[in-house]
Structures are given as C-alpha cells and as structure tokens.
C-alpha cells in the first residue's frame, strides 16, 4: 500500500471546472495551503467549495475568491473576508450558510453512509426553509442532508504511506470529517513518516479514507489574531 504522491500538482490531478471540493480548516488553522496554491495555479473555475470559513482576503480560500474561481461557497462563518462579503452581496457568488454543527455532521454523515439526519439547529430560522420538520421528545427538529464531494482536501501534521493521519492542536477541526466524505481525499501533511511510527492507538484518521498523500513544500501557517500575554517579571 503506497498512497504517496510527490507534489501538490500530482495530488490535485483530476480536479476540474465545476467540481465540488471540501477543504478542511477553521479560520486559517489547519487549511491545506499547498493544495489551495495549486488550485490557484491550475485556474480551475466554477468550483463549489465546502469549508467552514472562506479564508481572508489574501490567504486561504480568499486566494481562489480573488480570482473568481469559486461559484458557490458552503460555509458557516465568513466574517473575516471583505471580498467574500462583496461578491455575496453583489450576487456574483452563490452562498449557502449553514450552522457549524450541522456542517460538521453533514460531512460526517456523507462519509458514513447516513443520507440525512434531524437536528434542532436552525428551527424557526431561514435555515429551515423548505426542510422537513419533525418533533422528537416534544422538540422540533429539521431534516439536514449529507454532504459529499468530488475531492476532499485535508491538512494533517503527520501521515504515512497507508494514509493514516495525525493532526496537531486545533488544526484538527473539520479535517477528519471531510476526509471521510470525499470520493477522492487528498491529505497534505507536514511530515511523512514510516509505517509503524504513528501509534495505531492515536491515529486520528485511519488510512482507508485517504487516496493520495504528500508532504507540503512549505507551511506558512498564518495567524489570524495574534493574541499574547506578557511574562510576569
């Protein structure tokens, strides 16, 4: 079993105009920055991107938005990106905003073979429009459908040639869920390690969900809000 490819170019082979792509990350934390740079280079367009956020103006998915490569975004929070807000309010960009927990569960359901589920989130709001409502234990719930993608692109800390992945810190976020929901899932990692180096007890994403894995060239890991405290003297 060897799923290693050498470059982001090789990893993203087959991504075409009009496809649906899932991208892991929360804010700029745990985003597949090498693959995003490659998608910019490839000039693929009319993409539907499923990602919790849309990057900032000059990093993350903001780079694809700038070049108008995204036709539709499915996200929960997009407050950090002015270009996004401009494109959405002007109608250039189609946007489906969904509650963050529903987004996570919809990706997980897509990967797990569960076509739909009921959740209380969004009942009585515009998120519920056109969705079936059903009462359980006296409380209203809405029916949410699973999400899948032509390609899911995730970012992990370490991985091996079997595709087993370990994430670091809060860079985990949506990555393990989206990893399950791609017809083809690409993992970009900071370090490829030998099989056996990852303790099987602590593997976060089992290799079965991954089709291609590569070590990224560089990771800028930009910090959106640098907050620190001073050392007490």
């Amino acid at each position, binding site marked *: 079993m060897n799923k290693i490819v050498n470059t982001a170019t090789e990893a993203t082979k087959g991504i075409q105009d009009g496809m649906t792509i899932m991208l892991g990350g929360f*804010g700029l934390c745990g985003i597949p920055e090498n693959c995003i740079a490659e998608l910019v280079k490839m000039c693929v367009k009319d993409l539907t991107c499923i990602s919790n956020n849309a990057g900032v103006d000059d990093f993350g998915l903001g780079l694809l938005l700038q070049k108008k490569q995204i036709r539709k975004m499915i996200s929960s929070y997009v407050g950090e990106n002015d270009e996004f807000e401009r494109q*959405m309010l002007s109608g250039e960009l189609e946007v489906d*905003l969904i509650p963050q927990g529903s987004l996570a569960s919809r990706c997980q359901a897509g990967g797990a073979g569960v076509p739909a589920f009921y959740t209380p*989130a969004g009942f009585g709001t515009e998120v519920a429009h056109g969705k079936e409502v059903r009462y359980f234990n006296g409380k209203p719930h809405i029916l949410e459908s699973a999400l899948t993608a032509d390609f899911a692109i995730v970012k992990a800390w370490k991985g091996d040639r079997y595709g087993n992945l370990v994430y670091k*810190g809060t860079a985990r976020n949506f990555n393990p869920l989206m990893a399950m929901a791609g017809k083809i899932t690409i993992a970009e990692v900071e370090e490829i390690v030998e099989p056996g180096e990852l303790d099987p007890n602590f593997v976060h994403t089992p290799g079965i969900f991954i089709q291609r894995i590569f070590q990224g060239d560089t990771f800028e890991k930009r910090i959106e809000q640098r907050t620190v405290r001073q050392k007490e003297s």
Partner: protein
Amino acid sequence: MLDKIGIAKRIAQELNDGWYVNLGIGIPTLVANYVPKGLNVEFQSENGILGMGAFPYEGEEDADYINAGKQTVTILPGGSIFDSATSFAMIRGQHIQMTVLGAMEVAENGDIANWKIPGKMVKGMGGAMDLVASADNIIVAMMHTNKRGKSKLLKRCSLPLTGVACVRRIVTNMAVLDIKDGAFVLVERAPGVSVEEIQNATEGKLVVEGEVPEMKL
C-alpha cells in the same frame, strides 16, 4: 451603567463549580477573566478545545492552537482536543452547562437575532444556531441599546432569527433580565441606573416586581 468589563464580571457570577461553559466572541470572551476564586470551570471552544487557557506568552504563540475567535490560545493541563463533530455533540447533546453569547436583538419571548443584517452585513451564524437550539442555560451579553440609542430588547426581532424562544437571561450595561412568560422580568439594576431608565430603554414588555436590587460587583 456598566462597561463591557462590568457586564462580563456580572455574568461570571452565574458560574458554578464543575461547569463546562461555552463563551461566544466579544464581551462573552471576557467572562473567562473573572471566574470567582475557588471555582473550577472548564471553557469549551467550539473549534475543538476543552480546557482552554489564557493567551500564550509572547513568542510562544502557535498557529495550530486557536480559539473560536481565531485568537492564539493555550490549553490547560487536563484539557483535550477534538474534531468539530465531537465539539457540537457536546453542545447539541447538552453536555455544556452554560452558554454566553452576544446579540443584535432579543425579543420578549426569548427569540434571538445575531447573525445577519439583510443587504448589509452577512457574516454567518457560525456555531450560534447549534448553541441556542440546544442549550438550556443561554445568557446573552450585550448593550441595552444600539449605537443609535434604540432598544435591543424588543417585542419581536426585526432581523433574521438565530433561534426561537431560547434565551434565559440577559445581562446588559443597564440591567439583568430574565425571559419569563413572554416578558423581560427585571432582576437587577446596574449601579446608578433607575427602573425608569431601564423601562425607557426597553421596547418589549418589562415586568417589574417589588424593589429591584442593584447589582453587586
């Protein structure tokens, strides 16, 4: 009249020992700075942390450790990290004892609006809809009036809703109010604020029962 820190301090008095608490972005985040001494409280950040600690020391910040506001943070001993589905299982499954979030509007029946101004501002709901749909103990932290001096405590919300009939308590710069039987029940006044001033700043139905005590901060 309280400032933002005063609001956070008053909300911190709501905490109980052993609770897991989710704090939203803005004033709610400040609550973590005023946990009463002797209380053990664990803060959850919906991007995947339990046991969130203070900001890192300068030079020790790590891009892989952020909170839901995208700020660099630390994790306390005994903390844990998890994916977004597990995080919202904690929230929807009612494993969190207190949720504090900001709002643009709250209605007298407990409806809340805080994610969208049609045609003007669309940031998205983030985790707010999941939080308000499931949590029992939802406390709103906000200013009593908006920048133009208009009440944010309304008969009905004018903005798109985040959740229906879900808010339990509101702490503003002027008062503590509970939602009960379709009205704002005045619980406490901010120092130096009269019942009349609160009445004038509240558009929705306000219930005043007996002497209303002043907050103790």
